[in-house]
């Protein structure tokens, strides 16, 4: 007999540890290419270990925060794997959904969808969850459904699904301050608003953010929230900047290690700005933080979620900080490399000045291409493999801006990295602007797409042979990825003559 009146869940593409490799999770943002859908889903998002109640050992970090907040407020709340919701139909009163990309409108899902004309797996998977017998039964018995997370805004573009699935409330933004009151109202059957956007003034204080109670996917631990750089396309920059104190970070690392997670994955929009004064890194705070992680995790891997390229260059050139952290603390034991997400966004100094003037700081935005190249060189030397994004179709972009981006990609050839092009999705301070659509694609965009593809295929093959998925147990995953890379190369080669013809014309 279940006791949980509040069940938090999401679909399989989110409820997974992606074989312990976050990069593989991105496969779920595309449609199944060259593989059956089931196999593709397994590759991107295998099922996660659960207990007898269907509680996953690892779950998305944001959902863990909400779960912790509700538990601390005295509710019987738990994250439940989507395959086990039926076990809680007797007790459940509120079903809470979380997602990064409910309907595949975010980057890069929307781009794969546009290019291939096929629905991405994450969208299909979420729809399957909502139309599963367990969710339908829950709704029939009057369970309230509340949807949140970074992809909450997408519901405003899918009002028919909202109505069909009986969503009671969609909430967008940092919810720690308000979620308990919302749940109290829902449990008391008081009317709920339809939509809430939590603005920066209602952002929670450090004290209001709870420590997670159970493990997060791949040991992810938030070290700061917000970003001081103010890029106009980015929603994170709207959140007030706050640093999580080391003692709280240590508590969360311990929660993860206790659950059997082997490593620590620091999450921040720019890990190197932990404890920073503006964009001036704080070497002492960073070294302490990494020593803390190393001490707690033993020889387990330490990872970073995101970096800003200007901080990489500045931190290394001024303090030698990248080499220090990598050689002295991170690359000890079995860890040979670290993957991290970075944003190039554009190779055009003109466009950089307009939409992301703070991203280059403390350097001038006009130097952006040089900053990118220098940072890539530093990361290459230090065994950091960036998965870098490029945004095509930023409002105000000219053909010349796209050419500059293509030139920059050429300069990045010698550096081990993946470069992922994304089409502009209206978010952040630009969220009122129009989407980048197929009709806007110009030959220069196709040139960039081909260059990124060639770059990424080359380095992906190199990494597969040297670093990635070396454990014997990961052999099937490795084999499938190798086959997939070959398939992509074959398709690109086949399409090349047509594309080259189009580029000329």
């Amino acid at each position: 007999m279940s006791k949980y009146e509040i069940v938090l869940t999401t679909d399989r593409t989110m409820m997974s540890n992606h074989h312990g490799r976050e990069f593989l999770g991105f496969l779920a943002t595309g449609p199944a290419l060259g593989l059956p859908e089931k196999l593709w889903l397994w590759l991107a998002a295998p099922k996660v270990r659960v207990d007898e109640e269907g509680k996953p050992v690892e779950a998305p970090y944001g959902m863990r925060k909400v779960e912790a907040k509700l538990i601390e407020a005295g509710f019987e709340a738990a994250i439940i794997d989507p395959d086990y919701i039926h076990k809680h139909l007797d007790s459940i009163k509120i079903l809470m959904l979380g997602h990064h990309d409910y309907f595949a409108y975010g980057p890069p899902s929307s781009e794969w969808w546009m290019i291939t004309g096929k629905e991405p797996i994450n969208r299909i998977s979420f729809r399957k969850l909502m139309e599963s017998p367990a969710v339908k039964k829950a709704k029939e018995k009057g369970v309230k459904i509340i949807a949140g997370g970074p992809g909450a805004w997408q519901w405003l573009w899918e009002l028919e699904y909202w109505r069909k699935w009986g969503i009671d409330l969609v909430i967008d933004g940092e919810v720690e301050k308000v979620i308990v009151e919302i749940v109290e109202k829902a449990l008391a059957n008081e009317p709920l608003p339809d939509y809430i956007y939590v603005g920066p003034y209602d952002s929670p204080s450090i004290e209001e953010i709870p420590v997670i109670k159970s493990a997060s996917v791949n040991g992810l631990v938030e070290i700061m929230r917000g970003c001081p750089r103010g890029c106009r396309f980015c929603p994170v920059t709207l959140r007030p900047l706050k640093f999580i104190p080391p003692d709280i970070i240590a508590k969360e690392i311990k929660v993860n290690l206790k659950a059997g997670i082997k490593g620590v994955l620091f999450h921040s929009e720019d890990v190197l700005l932990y404890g920073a004064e503006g964009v001036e890194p704080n070497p002492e705070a960073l070294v302490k933080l990494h020593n803390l992680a190393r001490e707690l995790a033993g020889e387990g891997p330490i990872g970073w979620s995101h970096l800003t390229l200007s901080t990489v260059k500045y931190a290394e050139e001024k303090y030698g900080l990248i080499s220090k952290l990598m050689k002295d603390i991170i690359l000890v034991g079995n860890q040979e490399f670290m993957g991290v997400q970075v944003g190039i966004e554009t190779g055009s100094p003109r466009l950089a000045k307009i939409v992301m003037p703070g991203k280059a700081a403390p350097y001038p935005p006009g130097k952006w291409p040089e900053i990118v190249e220098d940072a890539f060189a530093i990361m290459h030397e230090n065994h950091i493999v960036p998965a870098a994004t490029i945004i095509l179709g930023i409002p105000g972009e000219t053909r010349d801006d796209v050419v500059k981006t293509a030139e920059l990609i050429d300069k990045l050839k010698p550096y081990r990295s993946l470069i992922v092009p994304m089409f502009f999705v209206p978010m952040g301070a630009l969220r009122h602007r129009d989407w980048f659509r197929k009709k806007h694609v110009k030959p220069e965009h196709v040139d960039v797409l081909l260059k990124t593809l060639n770059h990424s295929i080359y380095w992906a093959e190199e990494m597969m042979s040297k670093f990635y998925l070396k454990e014997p147990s990961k052999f099937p995953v490795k084999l499938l990825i190798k086959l997939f890379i070959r398939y992509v190369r074959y398709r690109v080669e086949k399409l090349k003559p047509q594309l080259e013809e189009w580029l000329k014309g």
Partner: protein
Amino acid sequence: MSILEDRAFHVVLVSKGNLDSKKVLDKLSSYSALGFRKFIIHVLTNDERPLYLEKLRNIVFENIAYTLIIKYHKLSRGGLNELLNRLENNPYEVIEA
């Protein structure tokens, strides 16, 4: 004290056709100058729930600074009076947009 409604300004939005988002956003901006950072938008409309939100989309996406709480009410004279009675002790403005 409700955290959700604490120090909020209530906008009673009577929508009979297409919504003038700019008019609403200008109002939010003018009240923010008085110190309000949270707006509860009561939408009175004949449109169905949640489809009425399509007309609110621009308001939501144009805003990044304030907390917005959107509530639905079926459009009727009685409903409007009842809502205004409830809001008696709160700062509010009725907008036809």
